[in-house]
């Protein structure tokens, strides 16, 4: 399986989903005009990748400075897919990284965390200026 990579733009994050290292990373901002369209290839890739996992641990690093409401729906689906995978025994760790002074990013992370039972979902503060 090939890695899924998207370069960061002003309104879309950098995405690196690496099936060899079992490391998924999303970093930047997300407010595309049509979030469902933009992310559908990523969710399709993720679905294929997660399905073929047995018990290999997966690490997910997310650092979103800002995302709009339609992206929020996409990320909910993203985390639901991870939760389903963790539920069938694959160890999944999510690090939700946020800047200490970005209350909104922390709050959004907490709200995703509330819905996770099997995913190890960590809120990771980054020091100011990091």
């Amino acid at each position, binding site marked *: 399986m090939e890695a899924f990579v998207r370069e960061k733009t*002003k309104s879309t994050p950098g995405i690196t989903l690496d099936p060899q290292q079992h490391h998924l990373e999303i970093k930047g901002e997300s*407010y595309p005009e049509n979030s469902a369209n933009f992310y559908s290839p990523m969710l399709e890739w993720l679905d294929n990748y997660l399905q073929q996992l047995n018990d290999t641990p997966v690490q997910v690093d997310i650092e979103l400075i800002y995302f*709009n*409401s339609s992206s*929020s729906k996409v990320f909910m689906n993203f985390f639901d897919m991870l939760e389903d995978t963790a539920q069938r025994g694959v160890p999944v760790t999510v690090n939700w990284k946020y*800047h200490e*002074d970005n209350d*909104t990013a922390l709050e959004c992370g907490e709200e995703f965390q509330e819905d996770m039972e099997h995913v190890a979902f960590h809120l990771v503060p980054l020091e100011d200026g990091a």
Partner: protein
Amino acid sequence: MREIQHFYEQLKKEGIIFSFSGPVSQSLLEGIGATLRQKMSLEETSTDVMQKVFSIFVELMQNVINYSAEKGAAETGEADLRFGVLIIGKRDEQFYIQCGNYISPSQQAPLREKLNRIQGMDKNELKRYYKEQRRKEAADGSKGAGLGFIEMARRATQPLEFEILPMQNGNEFFVVKVII
């Protein structure tokens, strides 16, 4: 020629930082958004307030892009540009954003119902409603997730204000004001 200078001074006197009227596109949103952040950052606005203003600005502009009933004539399958008006100002140390666009008569009732409902909610109720709506399938023909106004109400410091004004051409004009 003189009118434009009066117009400019009037805007400044009212504390308006940005005003825009015309066709709205994603690239315009990105450009104004970056400048807005730069301006707030120069004024040493807190990260928290900057994020809230930016978030509300994006949701409002994308509402115009997705739902305004006033479109430019599109030729050869190019996506339509939709029109609206938006101002960002500061009064008594608080940012506010007002946004307006024409809507079709069929949009009126569901919009009014949604906003009335949101206006009556406190922050906890808004959070619950947001998470509940996020789980729902998007409405037919909707380009967004139907979460924009709930998101704005959650980031605002006061309840959203809105008006729907009947127009002579059969359309209606929708205005919303958000105070951060």
